[in-house]
């Protein structure tokens, strides 16, 4: 199967968008070759602004540029949502300015750079800001759809992308705020987002082979969240598991928990990073270390069932 990092697709999607929408400008903070905005820089040098190693200023500059009718996409590492938080909250979201954030290198699959560079709290920080749309594309094709959708939304949008090359699936229908049913089942349901799709698909197959009919639903949009779909599967399967490459605090798991509370769920478990920081290592070794490979996810679920 073809593999491509979601961040690479982000760079390509920006170029595609730039060809049809001349209001789109791209800002980066000296990471264009990592966030992949260099593709846009090469194609549209006059619409690319390097802000230097000054992320806070990049975000507020984008805020100002948006008031002149432009659609700025800012990019840096997802771990810097912390360093940019005030600018994203007060500079962009409070006035509801039309700024997009394509932040890459999210999660522990950043790998060797280690825990200082592995964002495990970015979904939590972004989804709690009023008016923010939060996308977590699961593969390259979905990233294209998220970037296109972001340009159509009048307001702030956060797109979380990963560094690691991951499988590219056939394009699926895409609607902002709607989850995607990957497979149906009624014994248990796994809710996931981002590049954990690959590993939850494997987990679901393992469970299926043991006679457990497992539903799998992927959410490219964490906010606005598809509560209806989450609730219908929670009510049908009654055993609910969430899997994310993010802290179990404040991310997809808590989003699902808030949505399905009171729906008669018998079992609920959040699988992700258990309130700890990451560390250096090869991406796949790290997934194993934190219990996020397909077989480990299946094992955790089996224990609960």
């Amino acid at each position, binding site marked *: 199967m073809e593999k491509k990092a979601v961040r690479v697709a982000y760079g390509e999607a920006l170029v595609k968008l730039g060809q049809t929408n001349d209001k789109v400008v791209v800002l980066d903070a000296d990471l264009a070759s990592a966030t992949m905005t260099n593709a846009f820089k090469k194609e549209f040098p006059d619409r690319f*602004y390097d802000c230097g190693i*000054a992320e806070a200023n990049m975000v507020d500059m984008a805020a*100002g540029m*948006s008031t*002149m009718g432009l659609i700025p996409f800012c990019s840096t590492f997802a771990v810097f949502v912390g360093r940019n938080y005030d600018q994203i909250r007060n*500079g962009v979201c409070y006035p509801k300015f039309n700024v997009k954030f394509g932040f890459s290198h999210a999660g522990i699959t950043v790998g060797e750079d280690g825990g200082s560079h592995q964002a495990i709290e970015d979904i939590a920080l972004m989804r709690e800001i009023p008016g923010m749309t939060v996308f977590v594309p699961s593969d390259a094709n979905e990233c294209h759809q998220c970037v296109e959708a972001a340009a159509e939304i009048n307001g702030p949008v956060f797109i979380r992308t990963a560094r690691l090359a991951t499988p590219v699936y056939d394009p699926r229908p895409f609607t902002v705020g709607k989850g995607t049913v990957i497979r149906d089942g009624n014994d248990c349901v796994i809710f996931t987002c981002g590049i954990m799709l690959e590993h939850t698909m494997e987990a679901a197959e393992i469970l299926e082979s043991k006679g457990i009919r497992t539903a799998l639903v992927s959410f490219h949009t964490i906010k606005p969240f598809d509560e209806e779909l989450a609730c219908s599967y929670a009510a049908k399967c009654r055993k609910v598991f969430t899997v994310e490459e993010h802290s179990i605090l404040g991310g997809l798991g808590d989003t699902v928990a808030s949505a399905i509370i009171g729906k008669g769920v018998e079992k609920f478990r959040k699988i992700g990073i258990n309130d700890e920081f990451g560390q250096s290592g090869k991406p796949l070794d790290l997934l194993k270390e934190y219990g996020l490979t397909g077989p480990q996810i299946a094992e955790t679920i089996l224990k609960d069932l």
Partner: protein
Amino acid sequence: MDIQTLESYAREVRKDIIIMTSKAGAGHPGGSLSCTDALVALYFDVMNVDPKNDKMPERDRFVLSKGHAAPALYGTLCERGFFGKEEFDKFRQLHGILQGHPDTKKCPGVDASTGSLGQGISIAVGMALGAKHTGSKSRVYTVIGDGESQEGLVWEASMAAAHYKLDNLTVILDHNGLQIDGSNDEVMSLGDIKAKALAFGYDVIEVENGNDMKQVLDALHTPPCPGKPRYIILNTTKGKGVSFMEGQVGWHGKAPNAEQAEQALKELEG
């Protein structure tokens, strides 16, 4: 507009500041009174704005980076005709358009929401860059505080302003020398702020008395220096115009009571 008329508008705005803050029982009169002359000069004589069409695309932009001086901005916008004085009653109150700090979603004539220090100048840099990008003739003005200049973001923004040669940007420093915990020098000295601004690539003008309308106008009307952002140091007095507030750090974020307000208004009437 002649100096006397502008000075009388400045007097009215100062009265508005006293009325607003005393009614609300809260707000920041000191730093509002220090930058009043600059705001009046900008809105009545320098900037291209239309109160009846506050979103006019070709308008000049203003960002009050020291957002806590909102009463000065609200007074100026009101005197200029953006909204009526009845709004003063709802300053800092539920459902009011005059929020504690400027809110672009709620208040006509406000181009950016500010209050988190350091951000306004950075947003203004983005506006100026956006104007260049789109070929707009709009000029962008921002008023920053001296205490605010302790924020690193002010200097990130300054570096970008020079890098992108934003000669359509004017940064105005309201240098009243005081901040919440004391004088700048006691809290965190700015050092040689003029030398710093020059080193960051600004074209710098220092105004000896930033509360003197003529001096302020002369600085604001100085033609831009091609390829360089402008930085105007206004040496001002915190609490300017009200004897018991002038130069007093205690009036940074404290509203006058009814009696104090009455005295202040009497002084401002002259």
